[in-house]
């Protein structure tokens, strides 16, 4: 019996895997791309890229099927919402792209928040982003089978865009961000990972287009966390094409304005430090009930970047995070412009939220 009680847990342990389990130690990786786990394309993929004595890990997970309308409109894009992230050699996530409202692998959310608590040395993080770009390009080159094509698509999109320290949109803002740094959060003068400055960039594209007429817009937000360099990027695809895709145009940005400590990258929440999440109510194009669509997600994400939560003083709320309502340019509820909310019933049907939001 004693032998059985020892062996049963052992058998169970053999049968279960986590993301961390599939990350081969750096020393055991080959130089260049390593396809660690590509056996089950309905689940996702894991890969690693080694250059010298350093490596990054690429992980993708398959989520819900996109609506038929999105699949018809963009047949070259993956049929499913896909989450993608890069993890450094210490297990810290420094880039994540979320296909829908929540992460497919629910363990990612906490791991991403944990990454903010223990940021990397600047030079290491800049190197990681560079390695990630090489990893994505190499992955896209070797992932040539039909089964791996959806993963190659997102990797190729990542490889084609600049890393944060070389992105002209971001580098142009560093001086202004540094100038806003309070003296008490100066270099080496902070605890618990220090203070963070958040930037949210809004990207959009016309959708449902025929002829030269696009009756609606899809929007996506790229959130960047800055400390003394860009440490973490979170792309919220909001169910459709992701920010950074060549078809998406940069429109405007929102910034946290203040430096935030103990930041928590969550979803719908009215916590004062919850940043970056999307709406978790049902998703619907006609967001006239207790539901939302991509532009409501974008509005929510941008307001969280600005205020640290949806419940800031400039928003009408019903006392919880997801019932936020944005009522127009004056933010005084004048109703003169398009409306956004995660629960649109509280906002008189959220009329016209199929246009992109502004950046608060």
């Amino acid at each position, binding site marked *: 019996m004693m032998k059985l009680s020892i062996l049963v847990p052992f058998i169970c342990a053999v*049968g279960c895997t986590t993301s961390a389990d599939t990350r081969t130690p750096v020393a055991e990786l080959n130089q260049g791309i390593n396809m660690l786990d590509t056996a089950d394309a309905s689940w996702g993929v894991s890969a690693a890229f080694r250059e010298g004595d350093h490596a990054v890990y690429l992980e993708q997970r398959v989520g819900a099927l996109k609506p038929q309308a999105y699949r018809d409109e963009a047949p070259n894009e993956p049929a499913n919402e896909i989450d993608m992230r890069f993890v450094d050699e210490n297990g810290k996530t420094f880039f994540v792209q979320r296909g829908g409202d929540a992460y497919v692998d629910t363990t990612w959310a906490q791991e991403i928040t944990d990454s903010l608590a223990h940021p990397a040395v600047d030079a290491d993080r800049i190197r990681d982003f560079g390695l990630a770009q090489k990893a994505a390009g190499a992955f896209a080159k070797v992932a040539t089978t039909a089964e791996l094509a959806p993963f190659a698509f997102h990797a190729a999109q990542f490889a084609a865009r600049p890393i944060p320290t070389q992105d002209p949109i971001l580098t142009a803002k560093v001086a202004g961000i540094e100038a806003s740094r309070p003296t008490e959060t100066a270099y080496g003068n902070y605890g618990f990972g220090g203070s963070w400055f958040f930037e949210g960039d809004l990207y959009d594209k016309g959708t449902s*287009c025929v*002829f030269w007429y696009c009756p609606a817009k899809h929007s996506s937000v790229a959130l960047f966390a800055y400390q003394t360099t860009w440490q973490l990027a979170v792309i919220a695809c909001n169910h459709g094409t992701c920010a950074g895709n060549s078809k998406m145009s940069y429109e405007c940005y929102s910034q946290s304005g203040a430096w935030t400590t103990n930041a928590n990258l969550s979803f719908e929440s009215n916590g004062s430090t919850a940043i970056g999440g999307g709406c978790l109510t049902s998703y619907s194009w*006609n967001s006239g009930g207790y539901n939302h669509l991509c532009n409501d997600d974008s509005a929510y994400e941008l307001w969280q970047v600005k205020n640290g939560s949806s419940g800031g003083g400039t928003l009408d709320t019903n006392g919880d995070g997801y019932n936020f309502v944005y009522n127009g340019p004056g933010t005084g509820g004048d109703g003169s412009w398009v409306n956004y909310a995660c629960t649109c019933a509280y906002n008189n049907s959220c009329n016209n939220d199929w246009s*992109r939001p502004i950046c608060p």
Partner: protein
Amino acid sequence: MKKTLAIVASLAIAAAVIIVVVVRKKDGPHHHHDAKTGAVEAVGIDQTDTAVSMMAMLNAPDQATPCLTAFAAIEAEGAAMKLHNGKSMFKWVAPKDAFVAACEQLPAAQQQCMAPRYRRDHAEDCQKNRPMPEALKPMYVGEPIPEANPAKP
């Protein structure tokens, strides 16, 4: 006897573990599927007016020319919206003869972009090769599109 049984049982379990390990090595790790990857989470979108309009137009059959294909797509959109009891994305559409005649005044490359599937598959080229609004007015008028105010509040 009991000792022999215990040894046999232990050996059997050990053999089972070895088989599991070997099979797993061969098949790769077993993954926990967190998502319903075959189901549409955002299913409401396919039932909306804009989505019904677009899908009807994209799935309309090709005709002899891009301009005829464009008009057939508009007819398909109208029929789909009647069935759906929804609102068309077009405020006004010219009668077929006038629509096709105006369409055929466009340069050949722009005529191609009038066919919805061609326009979808060549979106960048078609966007660059946009006709003047006056050339499109005799064919159709879309419902107004609300634009975001670029100014910060």
